[in-house]
């Protein structure tokens, strides 16, 4: 890009409007669709693109859906409900089997037409679960088993029909099929590329954009996949540029070099929107900020102390001041996205300092320090939130010195007393198994790390994972919320997180209610 072109862009930012508008009606022969640059804080934490290694929602989820897709999709323009993706319809054969009909004529980026063989391969040993001739790194099958703990096989019924067969009854199979980690790849491309390492940064899928180049820690460039089943992509080239400094991302947006800047902090939104031609979009995502307990800390053995800590936090103030009202205190560790499994009427323990003091008094809390481990703004407004929370706790007599840690290993380090720590929890798919069981159940990271356990919770996790009766499952989930948030607290829900993206105002793009930046034809205003 020459200086003169940049000058042109900076001096006449509005010029992008006619360029974009023209692109909507341009034939492939005269391809003047815009090329856009999206400044992100991080493209991939793991340095590769494989969704079974790269697990970060605030990095890979931005672009992954542009390259690879799932059989059952989520409505990014709605409330993330399940919608047909690479499968046009699906049905239950029995409690352990789901049959899906593939969308005919879907073109992969390498020119092949998607078949049931690609789907079976995507969930097979070579790609996902290891064993046999597979040369997958050991962590890939382990992550795959987290996504699919009881998947027995994927059967090819015919060229456009597959069956997912589970070893145990599982009502969440459709949700799992729609979740990250269940993306479909090209069998031929994978085999031709060679081993996992060769494939880990060469994704070939069916999405609206195909991979041109990935430069770890620098950029990810995608070109329009003009044979995309969902229509011709409106952008010629997408370039995700890694710009770690928030100020640099906004400066680049202002100067016209970038058209989008991600990871905008909520307290910066008003300052950014004063610039002409720039607006900030965004809102709530399926992720809650939580604080978790290590109940082996002497002061936290008594659950009344943990409940007191929950009552002491003024969550409304955090949302109103640090998030400028753009987030919310959610109804516990759940989302309306759960549909039938959503427990209506449930709330987090209300802000009640008097109740907190009484609980602490009853528990005989003597001021023993309870270390509060955080990372410096790993989460939006994390440090400021921790300061507010600590002040709330101090007001009811709790002694919670903040310990700022550099990384997760230090946060989880068992050396030195562990008290409470920051964390978050996402709804990976539309069932509480994806959140409360995934992180706090018997195989979840919190129990595996020895912070907390509860026998009834673990029994109920089994009910939730393999039960098929909606009523019983919902009852079990409601009881789990009761245990985890009131009776034997394992976490405190602070707020539902929100993400914000700054963009050039003239681009008629809509921010989905997720981390995903949907640049497919569906993501633009018609």
């Amino acid at each position, binding site marked *: *890009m020459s200086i003169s072109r940049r000058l042109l862009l900076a*001096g006449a930012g509005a010029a992008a409007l006619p360029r974009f508008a023209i692109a909507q009606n341009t034939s492939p022969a005269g391809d003047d669709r815009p090329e856009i640059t999206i400044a992100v804080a991080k493209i991939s*934490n*793991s340095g590769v693109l494989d969704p079974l290694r790269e697990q970060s929602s605030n990095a890979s989820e931005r672009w992954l859906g542009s390259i690879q897709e799932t059989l059952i999709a989520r409505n990014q323009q709605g409330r993330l409900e399940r919608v047909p993706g690479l499968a046009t319809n699906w049905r239950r054969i029995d409690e352990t089997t789901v049959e899906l009909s593939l969308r005919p004529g879907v073109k992969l980026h390498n020119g092949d037409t998607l078949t049931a063989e690609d789907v079976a391969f995507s969930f097979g040993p070579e790609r996902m679960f290891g064993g046999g001739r597979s040369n997958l790194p050991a962590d890939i099958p382990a992550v795959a088993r987290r996504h699919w703990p009881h998947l027995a096989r994927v059967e090819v019924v015919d060229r456009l029909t597959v069956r997912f067969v589970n070893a145990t009854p599982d009502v969440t199979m459709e949700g799992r099929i729609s979740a990250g980690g269940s993306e479909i790849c090209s069998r031929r491309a994978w085999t031709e590329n060679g081993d996992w390492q060769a494939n880990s940064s060469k994704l070939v899928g069916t999405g609206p954009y195909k991979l041109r180049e990935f430069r770890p820690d620098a950029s990810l460039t995608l070109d329009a996949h003009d044979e995309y089943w969902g229509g011709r992509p409106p952008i010629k080239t997408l370039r995700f540029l890694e710009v*770690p400094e928030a100020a640099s991302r906004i400066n680049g947006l202002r100067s016209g070099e970038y058209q989008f800047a991600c990871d905008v902090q909520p307290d910066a939104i008003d300052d950014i929107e004063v610039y002409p031609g720039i607006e900030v979009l965004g809102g709530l995502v399926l992720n809650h900020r939580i604080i978790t307990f290590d109940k082996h800390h002497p002061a936290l053995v008594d659950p009344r102390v943990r409940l007191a800590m929950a009552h002491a936090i003024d969550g409304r103030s955090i949302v109103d001041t640090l998030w400028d009202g753009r987030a919310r205190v959610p109804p516990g560790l759940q989302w309306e996205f759960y549909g039938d499994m959503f427990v209506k009427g449930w709330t987090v323990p209300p802000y009640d300092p008097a109740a907190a003091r009484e609980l602490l008094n009853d528990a005989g809390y003597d001021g023993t320090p309870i270390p509060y481990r955080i990372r410096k703004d790993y989460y939006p407004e994390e440090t400021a939130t921790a300061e507010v929370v600590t002040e709330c706790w101090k007001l009811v007599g709790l002694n919670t010195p903040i310990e700022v840690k*550099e990384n997760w290993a230090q946060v989880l380090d068992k050396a030195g007393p562990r008290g409470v720590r920051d964390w978050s929890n996402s709804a990976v798919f539309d069932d509480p198994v994806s959140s409360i069981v995934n992180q706090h159940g018997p195989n979840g*990271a919190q129990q595996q790390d020895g912070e907390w356990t509860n026998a009834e919770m673990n029994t109920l996790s089994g009910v939730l994972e393999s039960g098929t009766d909606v009523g019983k499952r919902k009852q079990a989930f409601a009881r789990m919320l009761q245990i985890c948030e009131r009776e034997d607290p394992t976490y405190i829900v602070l707020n539902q997180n929100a993400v914000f993206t700054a963009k050039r105002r003239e681009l008629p793009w809509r921010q989905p209610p997720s981390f995903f930046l949907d640049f497919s034809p569906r993501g633009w205003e018609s």
Partner: protein
Amino acid sequence: MLRFFALRLARSVLTIVLVVTFAFVVLRLSGDPALLIMSPDAPVEAIHAFRHEWGLDQPLYVQYLRYFLAILHGDLGQSMRDGRPALALVVERIPATLTLAVPALALKLALGIPAGVYAALHRNSLTDRLVMAGAVAGFTVPSFVLGLLLVLLFAVQLGWLPSGGSDSWSSVILPVVTLGLGGAGMLARFTRSAMLEVLGQPYIRTASAKGVPWRAVVRGHALPNAAIPTVTIVGFLVGSLIAGSVVVESVFSWPGVGRLLVVAVANRDLAVVQCILLLVASTMVAANLIVDLLYGVFDPRLRNQAAGAH
């Protein structure tokens, strides 16, 4: 001379070994790469598998011995993030870093030395004060502040230059100026001090008293004698060519060794960090070695001392 060189070389090798050992211990004790690369939400089985695969479940001394023996065999290991050889990852970033560092070094020399000499020759004048005020500002303003100020002016307000990235030749200008101004300020200060010290020496007065033109005194007597302390600083600047642009590369999203180092340290990607440290330490040691040798060239007394002659 040979003994002088051998002593310096032995000390350099020891320095590199100490740097590598220290970095290994600190990095391994301050974070688990498995948790950092895979995130704390990853299944415990996956984290265990990752640790086993990379030998992170072995005692620290075993890991260190394996690593050290591999280095002796020329194997600098692989990145735990993507499995690629660490050396290849680092080497492919060096040209980007040198694209900033070499012009920045030239800028430092071109601005710093003449400014320092000029200020010394006009000691206590208004020009001297102005030059030194600029020099102090140059090396006291943090590079990320200076970089952002330059971006606001030249990218956001004037729209003349890109605010970051590495897409065109013009992307180089702001990071080079940011790097160059800081170093130039430091160099100007040291050059001025060295020149002032030399200009106060009796042999300068003697040369002037003998009627030697002032320009010739400065060129023939002052500048060569002021070169030794200046060469020390220049050696330091050359030594930090690779490591000196970490902050600037982050501010300007420049895909060089500095950015790689930040990411590798954050992920405790040991092989990559160690590879960069080896490179940085080697560059620094080599620069110091050359400076030491230049001392001997500039000042025969030092060379004779090292050789044991009195």
